[in-house]
């Protein structure tokens, strides 16, 4: 009843193969875009600075990991370190060439991360599955050690941390303390929309299909002519590029300063959680997973105060862990394929409502 699909017919092959063939889906997407654009008018500063900006950045990192783990089937536990590579690269580039715009450097730092990712992806031809995860763990711990042990990376600061210099774009502060949360939010939104659009085209095209072929059965993919090493390295490259950009954004648009500890193994696990809960091999899943894993603890922490209960901060923290863990198990039992599958089922039900199928 909601989806009046009668009358929507395609007259060209291009229209038939489009990603959002139904008009209602396109309207829905446009509504989400508009909502995202006008959000700063309604939401408070905490919502923008501590909920939306981190959510966008973590969703971008999840998209990156999803390409590697979800679409190509290569489990990676080194996401945190690749984010760190992007962040440190952006810092070095920005402090060495302050005149060039920071947005350029955020994108270029993705290429640095891409190179490092390809390097650590080389074992993937020989090693598969869970064993590859351990190889990426080697990358994680080694790169984290490098961040501390190579003082050149943080410009020999005695504190060992990278501090974000204040940068402007058309006269408006975009990084540093004077940058308003709204500015940072729009920049993050722009980058995330651009990358999502590119990745969406990528996964719906030939490259994406070769990734999925490698995931399903790589020997068969090799038999039909897909070059395995190239495809796997390409997957590492694209994934590391996106996570590198996310890492640079994390430091420059969210934290403002970072030590090597910000890119530790916990960060890798959190992004992996988001990808799995959201749904492997799904772009919308990355966003849904990031929302659930990141925003839910904030709600749990804010909830007691809103209801007038005073619970000790530590107890709230313990309860947050408990509830997060329980919710992860609950969602996995209810829908093992992730929130994206729930969304898909929901849309399907909406299309045929009020009929059951």
């Amino acid at each position, binding site marked *: 009843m909601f989806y009046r699909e009668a009358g929507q017919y395609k007259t060209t092959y291009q229209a038939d193969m489009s990603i959002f063939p139904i008009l209602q889906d396109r309207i829905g997407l446009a509504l989400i875009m508009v909502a995202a654009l006008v959000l700063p008018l309604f939401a*408070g*500063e*905490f919502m923008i*600075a*501590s909920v939306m900006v*981190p959510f966008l950045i973590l969703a971008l990192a999840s998209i990156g990991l999803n390409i590697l783990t979800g679409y190509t089937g290569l489990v990676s536990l080194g996401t945190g370190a690749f984010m760190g590579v992007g962040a440190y690269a952006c810092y070095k580039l920005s*402090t060495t060439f302050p005149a060039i715009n920071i947005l350029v450097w955020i994108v270029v730092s993705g290429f640095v991360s891409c190179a490092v990712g390809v390097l650590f992806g080389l074992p993937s031809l020989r090693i598969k599955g869970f064993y590859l995860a351990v190889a990426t763990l080697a990358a994680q*711990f080694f790169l984290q*050690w490098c961040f*501390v042990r190579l003082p050149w990376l943080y*410009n020999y*600061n*005695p*504190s*060992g*941390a990278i*501090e*974000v*210099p*204040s940068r402007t774009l058309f006269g408006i502060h975009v990084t*540093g*303390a*004077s940058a308003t949360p709204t500015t940072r939010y729009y920049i993050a939104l722009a980058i995330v929309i651009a990358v999502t659009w590119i990745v969406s085209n990528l996964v719906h095209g030939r490259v994406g299909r070769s990734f999925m072929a490698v995931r399903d059965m790589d020997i068969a993919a090799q038999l039909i002519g897909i070059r395995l090493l190239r495809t796997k390295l390409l997957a590492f490259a694209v994934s590391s590029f996106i996570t590198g950009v996310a890492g640079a954004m994390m430091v420059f648009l*969210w*934290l*403002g*300063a*970072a*030590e*090597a*500890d*910000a890119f*530790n*193994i916990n960060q890798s696990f959190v992004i992996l959680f988001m990808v799995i809960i959201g749904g492997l091999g799904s772009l919308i899943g990355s966003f849904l997973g990031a929302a659930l894993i990141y925003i839910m603890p*904030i*709600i749990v922490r*804010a*909830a007691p*105060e*809103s*209801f*007038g209960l005073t619970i*000790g*901060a*530590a107890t*709230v*923290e*313990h309860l947050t862990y408990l509830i997060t863990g329980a919710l992860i198990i609950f969602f996995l039992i*209810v*829908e093992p394929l992730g929130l994206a599958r*729930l969304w898909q*089922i*929901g849309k399907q*039900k909406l299309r045929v409502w009020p009929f059951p199928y």
Partner: protein
Amino acid sequence: MKLKTTLLALAAATALTALAVPAAQAEDSVFVPLFTYRTGPFAGSGIFIADGMHDYLTMLNERDGGIGGVKIAVEECETGYDTKKGLECYEAVKPKNPVMVNPWSTGITLPLIPRAAVDKIPILSMAYGLSASAQGDTFPWIFNPPDTYWDGFSQIIKFIAAQEGGLDKLKGKKIGYIYLDAGYGREPLPFLDQLSKELGFEAKLYPVPAAEMQNQSAQWLNVRRDRPNYMIMYGWGAMQPTAIKEAVKTNYPMDKFISIWWPSEDDARGAGDGAKGFKMLNWHGSTPDFPVIKDIQKYVVDAGKSQSSKEKIGTTLYNRGVYNSMLIAEAIRTAQQVTGKKVVTGEDVRRGLEDLNIDAARLKALGMEGFTGPIKLSCSDHNGHHPTFVQQWDGTKYVKVSDWIEPLSDKVQPLLQADAKAYAEKNAPWPARTEACDARS
């Protein structure tokens, strides 16, 4: 069926959170958020600090009705020593107009430093944080009394020199430095390097990565191989008890093992009898025998308003928290005196911190006679570089074993100035100081 239940559950959850309304702020009170960590790998140190801070402020509310007649609204925000959670706490408390922020983590302090001036909230990173923030002209909104990490390091070196018979006797000796491989532990490295060149001793470094805090056997094997004459430790959380245990295991002479001011009684007690002789810096008492602690016992602990267990009241880190809260309270009081307002803001408390002058008479009025020494800050000196003393573990408690030791200011000051200048250059454009100086001194 499953889909229905899931969707219903999701809808209920969203409805509940939509109904949630933020709590209203009580009238006529001063809001002090406490960034604490009672969870995570550093909870071993964080719990005592949190209890000390919370109990002192609660005692002021109960005994005196607040500060200057205005109640203190205390709220704890759990950071787990994690920078991201710390920033979230900061953003969450900002709308409530905090008068001061105590991040209790160098990692959280660093991103907040540029924000303090923009958000007009002073940061009190007591004896931690960025050492260079002692320079009030470059960092008008950041305060780190009573000493920086560089002051502390120089005080330990002075103590070692006193054991050896003079600074010149350090020539040819080996001094080992075991530290948490994070910003906090790495900060003294350039200073150590400079001192070793100037005084002629050999410095040996033993970094401990945060993930390997409980697995230090390799570092202490290296200590056994190198046999340094003295060991200096900059640790925190689970690193400290493991280090002391390993030191006892490798038979390192404990009386030559000196730490910066962060270990607690539990850290040394866990290593058993062998830990006797372990030393650390401190600047306040570590027993409950002071009028202020007795007042806390009476008004807070006995009234059931404290989360601390009874035997931890008055221990080193608990008293550290009490001292921190004393600084907060005195800054608020000074701000009230300077501005004449009762409900002060962040800007007022910044002036209060700059004009802070707690002399012996005021200490006695606070019930802290003999607990600690006088403290004075100024517009250009946000630290004060005060003296500390060395206390030693005797198996059951820490006992003061030295007089007050002044820092090597002639060596530390040029480093602080250079570092502040370098910070401002690296983070250009760094705003020049526009806040006026009250010049009360």
